[in-house]
């Protein structure tokens, strides 16, 4: 019941939000959402048993009889932190809309809430088709967000976003259908679209290894686009760069995580053998993402694009961690996903606050922001430090875990060295960003007149900054949820 509420309540609230033209109505929606999400989070957390490795809070009902598609929800340690992250980030973004969105706040909030519902759905569905539905449906509100509130180049960016993602996920659809046809022809299993059914079918060798390999790639590509992994990442800078602040925050903080989540939920458990077979390929791609995309970030002049490329680079650690196929690596990937959720959202919020005041995203138009807006600078530097994985911030946890996992898993210690280069590269581009934007003298005359963060904006940024530190100093508070599920995932039963 709770999981259904977590899907549908935001969507209904979002539909309601479309009618709130007045500011008070929007605030009302915001408060309602806050209350709802807090209640949801509390009740889910209180009913969640950390020690169990299987799915909990299960809801299951037949939805479409002909297709044997079930309305099948459940939550485990892998999805729970991400679900909580989504609830949290959505609230923050809702709050942030008041400070960054100039037109049609009510529509923006509505789309945001709908998006939250769909993302929640992605995290809790256990029926592959249901997942696919929500996975694709998510594109629509995001498309509209970019389309309506985006920057100058929003048209290109929004097309690219939707077509790229669709192109990635259609092969998955084909693979799902193919697998289902084999499963239903086999007859030994009760044919349905449960993940466990697919898993069992593969485990029972109903598919030849060659088949498993291409099926794995079909699934993999869908999520690799979302993550995004190296050769499929080029939509992200455009989408992030052009999206409105809230859109970028949600894109970076949440939707990218669905990629990682999908790998953990589908690719790794369903195709363990094929995944291990292509382990080194995936590792190499991840490393390219980490190093090469990091280098690309170094040359960006557009602040949001820089952060976007840095997101790609950081998400490389997620795929790297998953590719190690060890509990440590996957836990590291989880930590990295959570951390990146807060950090990238924070960085985008900072840049959003700047963009809202200066209406530019070019580095050369900034400089000396620390003088003009000290509060912003303090928080931005904190996020920057998290971005370059300074210990004590959340950014460190994941990268540390993943690098150690690479060494521990024995896939090749050289990989760890290359992954470690991020220490230098991430520091370079992040500090370059700080140097050009926050330090130095004020060059842009507008900066002399801008006001520092308002109380509300401070709340937005602080609410992202505090988790960054909490996770940085006590990651076990989050990792404890995923521990047993990750172990379960790797034991393959």
């Amino acid at each position, binding site marked *: 019941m709770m999981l259904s509420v977590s899907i549908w309540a935001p969507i209904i609230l979002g539909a309601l939000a479309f009618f709130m033209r007045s500011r008070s109505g929007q605030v009302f929606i915001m408060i309602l959402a806050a209350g709802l999400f807090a209640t949801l989070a509390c009740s889910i957390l209180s009913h969640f048993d950390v020690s169990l490795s299987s799915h909990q809070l299960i809801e299951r009902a037949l939805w*479409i009889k002909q297709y044997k598609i079930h309305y099948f929800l459940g939550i485990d340690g892998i999805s729970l932190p991400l679900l909580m992250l989504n609830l949290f980030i959505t609230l923050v973004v809702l709050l942030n809309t008041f400070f960054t969105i100039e037109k049609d706040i009510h529509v923006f909030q509505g789309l945001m809430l709908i998006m939250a519902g769909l993302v929640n759905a992605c995290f809790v569905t256990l029926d592959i088709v249901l997942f696919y539905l929500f996975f694709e449906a998510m594109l*629509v509100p995001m498309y509209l967000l970019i389309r309506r509130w985006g920057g100058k180049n929003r048209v290109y960016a929004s097309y690219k976003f939707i077509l790229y993602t669709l192109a990635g996920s259609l092969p998955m659809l084909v693979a799902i259908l193919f697998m*289902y046809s084999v499963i239903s022809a086999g007859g030994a299993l009760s044919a349905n679209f449960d993940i466990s059914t697919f898993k069992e079918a593969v485990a029972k060798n109903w598919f030849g290894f060659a088949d498993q390999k291409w099926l794995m790639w079909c699934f993999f590509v869908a999520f690799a686009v979302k993550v995004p992994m190296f050769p499929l990442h080029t939509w992200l800078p455009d989408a992030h760069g052009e999206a409105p602040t809230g859109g970028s925050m949600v894109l970076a903080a949440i939707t990218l995580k669905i990629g990682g989540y999908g790998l953990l939920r589908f690719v790794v458990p369903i195709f363990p053998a094929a995944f291990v077979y292509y382990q080194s390929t995936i590792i190499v791609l991840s490393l390219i993402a980490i190093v090469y995309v990091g280098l690309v970030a170094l040359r960006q002049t557009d602040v949001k694009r820089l952060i976007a490329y840095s997101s790609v680079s950081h998400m490389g650690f997620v795929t790297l961690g998953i590719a190690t196929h060890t509990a440590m690596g996957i836990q590291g990937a989880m930590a990295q996903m959570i951390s990146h959720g807060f950090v990238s959202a924070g960085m985008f919020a900072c840049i959003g606050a700047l963009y809202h005041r200066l209406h530019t995203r070019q580095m050369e138009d900034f400089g000396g922001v620390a003088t003009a807006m000290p509060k912003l600078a303090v928080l931005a530097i904190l996020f920057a430090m998290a971005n370059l994985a300074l210990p004590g911030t959340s950014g460190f946890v994941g990268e540390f875990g993943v690098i150690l996992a690479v060494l521990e898993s024995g896939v090749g210690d050289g990989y760890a060295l290359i992954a470690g280069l991020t220490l230098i590269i991430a520091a370079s581009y992040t500090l370059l960003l700080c140097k050009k934007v926050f330090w130095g003298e004020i060059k842009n005359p507008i900066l002399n007149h801008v006001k520092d963060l308002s109380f509300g904006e401070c709340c937005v940024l602080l609410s992202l900054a505090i988790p960054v530190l909490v996770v940085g100093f006590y990651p076990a508070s989050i990792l404890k949820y995923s521990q047993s599920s990750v172990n379960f995932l790797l034991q393959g039963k």
Partner: protein
Amino acid sequence: MSDLLVVLPDALLFGSLCFLVLVAAFLNSRCILRWASIATVLGYLWSVTYQTHHISELIAIGDAHFKSLFVLDASSLGMKTFAGIVTLLVIIFLESIVFASAPEKAKEGVIIVLFGLLGASIMVGASHYLMSYLGLELLSLALVVLIAWGLETEQLEAAIKYFILSSLASGILLFGVSLIYGATGHLNFVSSALVRYPLYNMYTIGQILIVAGVAFKLGWVPFHFWISDVYASARWYTIVALSSLSKIGIIGFMMRLYDTGVFSSNVIASQFIIVLSILSILIGNILGVQQKSLRRILAYSSIANMGYIGLALVCRTGAPFYLAIYILNTLVMASILFSRFGHALDINLEDIKGFALKHPYQGALLTFTMFSFAGLPITPGFWAKWHVFKGFFAQYSPWFAIFIIIGTLVGTFYYVRIVKYLYEDVDAKDTEINSKITPAISSSFSYGMSLSIVVIALLWSTVAPDALLSWSERITGKGTATLEEAARLPVASPHAVFTTKAIPLKVPTLQKSLNNPLVNPMPPVQ
């Protein structure tokens, strides 16, 4: 008298038509004509329902008298219901237009549409090539007249184009029928399919020519050129009729060919249908991107969607389902565009700039429809594509997916482009262009009613496609049991694909089936 019950729907329809013709000739009352025609369709629907309930007795009677000309079964009755409902919508739509634009001289238009329904009704029930041909011609001619019904130069030109090309296609189809007759000596579907050793080449050519004729009517590439021009000039109700009534007739005909064993999943004709379908998906969408005119976009969307339906036909699953959802989408788009632009011929993308901002509800509906066309979840369009893919990839190689995916992506692009324009901010200089937006008939009751019916149907088929699906399955006869059925076929069964270690790159089903007929000239038919 009980004989008549067997042909009750058609007889009722034809009888009422004779009556309506007289009404139109002697009573110059549009009102009577309208309600009489609506009553006719309702009567038609009732009689179909009656037949559905008494199907077993009727079959017994029918066997004695009309055996070889047409069949009475779930499939034909279902398609007839489908055609009837669609006609009802078209009539409501047409009549609401008449109200709005008084100069339109479409009094007899209703009769034409009903003739079209008669044609479609005959086609979907026919089990005899001659009956099919007669139905097809009636349907085509009705469409020709409907296209011409605006009587402007553009419409006449389009009607002439459609008429001539459609006659060409009918000629090709008929030549094919004559060859099948020559190869088997029978004109009945079942009997001709049961001939053990027909003149195989001639038989195959006949099949191919029939496919070509059907391809023209459905607008499969490269037989699609007329669609764009016709859509660009015809009245909206014609467009709706073209994309609903005519497709129902043709698809009913094709389904019947499959059901009776003339075609089956592994004859060459099926391979051609697949190739043409995929070509349609690809080229229809690629050309759709090129269009600026919304009417032409709708045309190419129709072409591409017929491609998907082709796949559904071949794997014998869910073509009516796909068609129903396609018709719903088209209806929404057509009615919204009509309500805002009237009969304007050049509705360009620029003209709908900011449309959704001005009219949020219609804009949202149009957006939903576009995403549904594109097949994005959660829209009925997704279920439609899902269903087709599900059936198709259960039988054919996943390598076809490459083309289908590319086509689908390209299609998504131009549907999404429409959404883009819908939500675009209107600049000051664009207001002049937008002056073309004139609220025409959105207040009309019947229009509102039909639109809301359509919207309810859309939402319903999104959330619970179950009912529509089971209906579609019932109609399709063999339905989703394709896999089991295909398993019984000796060659090119899906298991041949599934059990191979790797999927070879060379499109296995296609090649195997191509070699197959020489070994096993006719597919076994029960």
